[in-house]
């Protein structure tokens, strides 16, 4: 045989050795951060050069080949019209992801993107596999929208270890209970308000029974109070420990009659120092100064003000509390996302937001997204 008959075979693919695979799989992708943080553009040539280098560096890192395992991916198909990804093949546990509709499992856009980023999902669209870069445009849209913040918060909180699900406000079960508010609901809501420092939810307030129940409630309360004048203080306060201590010394009838006519709930957050001996000693002077009162949360006149509306986006559950998608328990937190330039909710705005929940026992977590896409959580305590 001569050389003319030889056929050279060159592989179209390149195969990496095992060592290369390991090295490339764990490539460090961090932009170098040197010097102080700068907040405004100066426009100097040196700065432009630096920016150009930074962008080039970023591009180089982003366009580097990444190596991931192909096995262990679920497969889903993106439905543009429904804005949801239908899961075609499950792989792994899907307990805290997606929702079922007509026997099919769908993923929300943020869930699909999150799983895609973690290499647990192969997303297909028009018979093609969607790349990560394409997925960003496809799932979040090209125009700026709240979807970016939603995804950012979703992925950060999921990585932190929460089960993040869409806020369950209008599920069928809860709307049906909302439709029939019995006087029992009203009483529980009032009890919660008086003892547990929780505002009455809007759907109970709107009920025709609420007003009647509330009137009876205050009647009964008045009756109980006038029977047992010595325990009068207890009705006005949340802090039992200090009241029992104080009650022993308290026996001036004049003082009590004053309390009755005032009859205000003291749900203040700064009442703690009334337990101090100095308060008892100078009680008369303190009461003389007590001319400005806490605004009652029940007062609806405040609602006439122009309030911004804050939407509850997500519910947070903890992993070790036995979360089940089909029957979610009361979440640990509900999340309100605050866009970058939005001022924080005020007292009334937060109260309004709180009231739109059906299960008002859940604390609200206000999550602010900063300019640099950092997220920070805040808890409110209101009087």
């Amino acid at each position, binding site marked *: 045989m001569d050389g003319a008959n030889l056929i050279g075979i060159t592989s179209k693919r390149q195969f990496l050795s095992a060592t290369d695979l390991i090295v490339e799989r764990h490539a460090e992708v961090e932009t170098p951060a040197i010097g102080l943080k700068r907040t405004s553009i100066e426009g100097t040539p040196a700065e432009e050069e630096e920016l150009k280098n930074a962008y080039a560096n970023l591009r180089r890192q982003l366009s580097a080949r990444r190596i991931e395992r192909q096995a262990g991916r679920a497969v889903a198909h993106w439905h543009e019209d429904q804005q949801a990804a239908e899961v075609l093949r499950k792989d792994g546990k899907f307990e805290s992801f997606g929702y079922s509709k007509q026997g099919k499992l769908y993923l929300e856009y943020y869930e699909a993107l999150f799983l895609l980023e973690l290499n647990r999902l192969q997303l297909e669209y028009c018979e093609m596999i969607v790349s990560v870069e394409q997925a960003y445009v496809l799932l979040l849209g090209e125009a700026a929208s709240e979807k970016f913040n939603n995804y950012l918060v979703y992925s950060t909180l999921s990585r932190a270890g929460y089960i993040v699900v869409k806020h369950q406000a209008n599920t069928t079960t809860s709307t049906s209970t909302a439709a029939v508010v019995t006087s029992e609901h009203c009483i529980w809501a009032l009890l919660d308000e008086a003892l547990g420092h929780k505002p009455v939810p809007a759907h109970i307030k709107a009920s025709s029974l609420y007003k009647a129940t509330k009137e009876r409630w205050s009647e009964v309360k008045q009756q109980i109070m006038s029977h047992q004048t010595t325990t009068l203080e207890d009705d006005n306060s949340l802090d039992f420990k200090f009241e029992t201590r104080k009650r022993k010394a308290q026996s001036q009838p004049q003082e009590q009659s004053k309390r009755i006519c005032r009859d205000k709930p003291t749900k203040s957050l700064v009442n703690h120092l009334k337990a101090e001996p100095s308060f008892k000693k100078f009680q008369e002077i303190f009461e003389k100064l007590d001319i400005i009162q806490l605004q009652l949360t029940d007062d609806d006149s405040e609602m006439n003000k122009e309030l911004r509306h804050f939407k509850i986006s997500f519910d947070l559950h903890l992993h070790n509390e036995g979360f089940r998608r089909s029957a979610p328990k009361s979440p640990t937190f509900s999340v309100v996302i605050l866009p970058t330039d939005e001022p924080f909710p005020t007292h009334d705005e937060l109260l309004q937001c709180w009231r739109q929940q059906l299960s008002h026992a859940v604390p609200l977590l206000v999550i602010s997204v900063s300019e640099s896409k950092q997220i920070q959580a*805040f808890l409110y305590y*209101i009087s």
Partner: protein
Amino acid sequence: MEFVPHFKRKRSNSKDKIKIAPFPLCAEGQRGYQGVFTGLCVEVVDTEQARIRTLHDNGCYGKGSCSRGGPVSGEADETLLLGLEEACLLTFFLEVLEIRDVLGNVMDWNSYMQAALEYDKDFPYKLAAYLYLKSKNWIIKSGIKFGGDFLIYKHGPREFHASFLVLVQTPAENIHSHYAAKNLKGVQRVAETSDKDVLVLSVNQFPDFEPKLATPTTLQSLTIQETVIRRFNYSAFVQTKQTK
């Protein structure tokens, strides 16, 4: 989640612990202290009958003109500088102080109010917030060093760190000034360095309330809403829950 305020005790020598009362009291019908309204504050001079040290020690009112806190420098001409709200409380509610203007005329409520409004247009609202907190047994100092309106203490700055940095939200046009993200996060970070909470007191008024003509009676129509906003470490929270 239940709200519990921070009470952080200061490391202090036992010898300078003084039993203090929340109010300096004079004999019935006597205004023992004499103050002069300077336009910025009310300056009280030390006299044999009425020691400014006593005024400061009973409720921590004012600041010594030659000292960091109370008038302890020992200088002969040291005076006690009272904030406008403090002076108002001592004069018109506790009646232990008499305020004169720089010309020596005694100031009544109206003239004091006018003068205070020139210095601070929100004075009636701040006074309302001050009285609100005072009636709940807090020791109140100026919050300027932490970027707020008041700092409130249990027992006073000698024994405790301040529990709250108080911001007074007046019903003025710019309702969101304290709630702007960068402002709120700013004061929060400052307050957190010494375990304080940021307490926003929103003062609400009826439409007919006229701050320029406020009297102790009309002040009663004001109401207050309390808001505490705390930063919440969500990742630490989830980790402590998981290890349980």
